[in-house]
């Protein structure tokens, strides 16, 4: 028999209005505007776009405010919003080689075409809290220097000229890119599907897994061949135009990880690679993604699968923080009936235990009960 119980409507409504009040906070403090969040908490916005898997700065900023700064809740909100919109199509693949670069560094070559461009980085800062920022000090205009008109080829292309590195990942000619938002995951999955899952994966989860590979669990000796951050143009093929429709530009972060060798009786040794590509400015995530991508290629490269980071089903099934939070947090919702069943069970087991181990006491109890 299933008995439905209702109740709590008033409590829920009041809890939500209390939430709205606490979210607003002290009314003597001005309310946040979305443009303030977009401009001044830009990397938080980028994280919500990346893991919410939706490139839209204002929506991500709204989600952050609505979630009171709880990033996973904000990501959840963005994911929910996505489902309300129709899909117009798949863009043409972006060309990161043609990026308007805002940062580009390589740990493998000091001198490379286009040079090392530090851009707006936290690297080399002293990590000292800045009281002037707290006092709202004005910030000077950044310096400018005449930009050299120099192409900035991807570092992988430089290594490829000597044949020292494996090519960019190819798929069989008739392969249609898989889409985890359309088809359920079925393991084993191809690399394109893994990359889609990793790109929207939880930064903390990927970071920990990437770290584990460095500490010896699926060690593969990585170097950052290149990290580049900047804007790329998007184009969409549509039937009503004789050319691809230009959509505007998006900022992405790309990481090319170069890893130790693979060779065989037939092929000479060469570097292998891991790849990371994420929305916005997030090199930590792009690097972690590239480490995980490389580790997950273990089977393809004939390596023993011995560590968590190499286990595709483990990594891809647990990388999505909306799924993870949904399943973990559902535990706090009412489970009264389930728990009653377990209570009955444990009482019965206790009675059986007592009857077996301590028959006299069990008899006393039974008599007392009667």
């Amino acid at each position, binding site marked *: 028999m299933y008995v439905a119980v209702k109740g709590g409507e008033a409590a829920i409504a009041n809890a939500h209005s209390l939430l709205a009040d606490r979210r607003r906070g002290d009314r003597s403090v001005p309310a946040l505007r979305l443009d303030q969040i977009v401009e001044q908490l830009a990397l938080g916005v980028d994280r919500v776009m990346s893991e919410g898997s939706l490139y839209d700065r204002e929506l991500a900023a709204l989600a952050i405010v609505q979630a009171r700064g709880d990033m996973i809740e904000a990501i959840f909100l963005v994911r929910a919003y996505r489902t309300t919109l129709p899909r117009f199509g798949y863009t043409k693949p972006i060309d990161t*080689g043609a990026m308007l670069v805002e940062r580009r560094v390589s740990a493998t070559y000091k001198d490379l075409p286009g040079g090392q461009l530090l851009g707006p980085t936290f690297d080399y800062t002293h990590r000292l809290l800045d009281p002037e920022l707290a006092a709202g000090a004005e910030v000077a205009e950044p310096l400018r220097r005449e930009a050299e008109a120099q192409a900035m080829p991807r570092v992988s292309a430089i290594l490829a000229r000597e044949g020292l590195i494996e090519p960019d990942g190819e798929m069989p000619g008739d392969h249609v890119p898989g*889409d985890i938002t359309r088809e359920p995951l079925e393991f084993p999955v191809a690399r394109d599907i893994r990359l889609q899952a990793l790109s929207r994966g939880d930064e903390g989860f990927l970071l920990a897994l990437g770290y584990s590979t460095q500490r010896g669990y699926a060690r593969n000796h990585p170097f950052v061949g290149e990290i580049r951050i900047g804007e790329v143009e998007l184009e969409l093929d*549509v039937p009503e135009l004789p050319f691809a429709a230009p959509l505007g530009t998006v900022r992405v972060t790309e990481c090319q990880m170069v890893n130790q060798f693979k060779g065989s009786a037939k092929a000479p040794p060469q570097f292998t690679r891991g*790849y990371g590509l994420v929305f916005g400015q997030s090199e930590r995530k792009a690097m972690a993604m590239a480490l995980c991508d490389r580790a997950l290629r273990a089977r393809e490269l004939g390596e023993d699968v011995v560590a968590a980071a190499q286990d595709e089903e483990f990594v891809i099934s647990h990388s999505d923080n909306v799924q993870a939070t949904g399943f973990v947090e559902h535990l706090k919702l009412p489970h009264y009936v389930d728990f009653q069943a377990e209570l009955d069970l444990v009482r019965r087991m206790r009675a059986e235990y007592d009857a077996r181990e301590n028959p006299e006491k069990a008899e006393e109890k039974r008599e007392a009960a009667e």
Partner: protein
Amino acid sequence: MRGQEARDQAERKAAMATLAQSSGDDIVRLWNEAGLPAEAELLRGPETGLVTLRGRIGGGGAPFNVGEATVTRATVRVPSGQVGHCYALGRDKQKAKLAAIADALWQDPARRAEVEAGLIAPLRSALTSAQEKRRAQTAATKVDFFTMVRGED
């Protein structure tokens, strides 16, 4: 394709790219300043949807899906008969409608010069100078390596 047709298509695409990258506020302001006609029949939209962004494995390999982006599109017909389209990132419906009208007017030989001079050219020059500024700011963070001479000669 004949040379002229190919050039026209490249110019039209460049104008659409400029409109897509510009802010709705800039388009509205220049539209009013140039006194362009905003009269048009809406054939579709403006409506917001998603596109799925694709990247390439390793930067140049097989395509894979990265994630979605919001896009707003509109299709209009102007009184002179031309049909214009707009697809632009974001959710700005007013911008999509005006950009579609601009695309339609651009295709009208009698209007093209006016649209180019009053709207596209100033938008393009603003975008170019913003890009130049960004490039120059990035260039100032370029590392100049120099070698330290160590020890006695």
